[in-house]
């Protein structure tokens, strides 16, 4: 045991134990320090390192918590588009997306939901009009103009769909096919493969939210997420979120807040 007096300088001065003096001195603080505790320990160096590490870890955790408390809530706002590819009127599918939307808005984001089944979406005919006749715009006029505008001006696009016959709905796929005016016909090398050149400077991150059906298994989920990952490469972006409807909505919003 040793004694520390709050000294005049920055460092406290260390003195030997002097009972008679200390007994009456209220300024004296008794501090057991790590060095003394380990004085006769064979592994003192390792123990010291361990103490330091745990201190650092706790410090980091506190720092992270404070950062989340003060900076994350309502701090960063992103624009999110929810592409609801549910073809069915009945069922509780839409409750999930509307709850997700309101929670995202509560967290300070701008969220917009497009219910694709209520929109007029024509099948892409592969005419390449959007590439060689009216660059950047589809020749066939339908509601997909809105989808494309929302898509390219968002920071994150969540593609939401039930799994039907092992893949996302035909409705969502039909809408996705109509996104090609957003990319350029010219080719470019990306990931050592040929893809399409970007038309715009910035593309939104993609997220995939799927509702499993009775016959959906792990293999189906693998295939779907791999195809959407490829889609993201072609759209010059990343697939940052893959979740099923079994996931808690708070977990989904937490991950979106941390993208």
């Amino acid at each position, binding site marked *: 045991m040793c004694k520390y007096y709050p000294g005049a300088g920055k460092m406290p001065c260390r003195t030997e134990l002097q009972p008679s003096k200390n007994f009456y001195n209220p300024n004296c603080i008794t501090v057991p320090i790590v060095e003394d505790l380990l004085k006769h320990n064979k592994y003192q160096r390792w123990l010291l390192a361990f103490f330091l590490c745990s201190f650092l870890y706790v410090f980091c955790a506190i720092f992270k918590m404070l950062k989340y408390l003060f900076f994350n809530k309502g701090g960063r706002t992103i624009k999110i588009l929810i592409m609801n590819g549910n073809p069915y009127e009945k069922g509780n599918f839409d409750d999930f997306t509307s709850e997700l939307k309101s929670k995202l808005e509560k967290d300070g984001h701008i969220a917009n939901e497009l219910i694709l089944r209520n929109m007029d979406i024509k*099948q892409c005919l592969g005419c390449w009009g959007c590439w060689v006749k009216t660059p950047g715009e589809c020749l066939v006029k339908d509601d997909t103009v809105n989808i494309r*505008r929302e898509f390219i001006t968002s920071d994150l696009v969540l593609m939401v769909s039930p799994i039907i016959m092992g893949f996302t709905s035909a409705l969502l796929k039909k809408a996705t096919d109509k996104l090609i005016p957003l990319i350029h016909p010219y080719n470019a090398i990306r990931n050592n493969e*040929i893809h399409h050149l970007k038309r715009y400077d910035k593309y939104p991150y993609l997220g995939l939210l799927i509702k499993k059906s009775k016959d959906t298994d792990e293999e189906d989920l693998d295939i779907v997420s791999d195809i959407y990952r490829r889609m993201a490469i072609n759209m010059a972006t990343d697939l940052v979120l893959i979740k099923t409807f079994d996931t808690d909505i708070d977990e989904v919003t937490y991950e979106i807040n941390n993208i």
Partner: protein
Amino acid sequence: MRLIIFNGSPRGKTGNTEVLLKHFLKGFSENEENSYEIHYLISIEKMDKLLEKIPNNDAALIAFPLYVDSMPGHVKKFIETLEPLCGKLPDLKLLFLVQSGFPEATHSKYVGRYCKKLTKRLGAKYTKTIIRGGSEGARLMPDNFKDFIKLQELGREFGETGSLDEPILNEIAGPEKLSDAILSKFPPFTDEPAFTDYWDEQLIKNGAFEKRFAKPYSE
């Protein structure tokens, strides 16, 4: 052998898928016992009417171009209508043809995995997926183009034995990935355009060359 074909090309009879099918079927029909019928999915409004036709056949071929890394939307719609047939087609041979404009086969392999799983789901016999890259110009190729001859060979083989020959499939599919030698010919930085001639020609023809980098949706 009776074969039913579903052509899933949005361009229907004028597409590249049709050209590839034509050559496959040329080989297939060399055996006079074989017969086939083609349905163009893009022009069919009520797809469920096709369902009753499938069980009368020995084999079914679903052909489509790669649209945003998978099947086009209306082909997915057709697949959704097949749901009542799950597990009811134990003797049907199911094969697929996926073609894309990309030169590498990798792009189409992912949807190939889906095709295999779909066959399992329907309870049919998986008879492989014909993958063909670099098909955007297929319409413009002469009939004696080497890949067309291989497709005829594949069709002939299928007409006789009922299976697809793996080595020929690989030859038609082309390289999995581009070789370093080819890659080194491209501009060194990503997102530098390459292969612009094909598109420039069409852009100039339509008077849209000046507007080719237009960004109609940017704020």
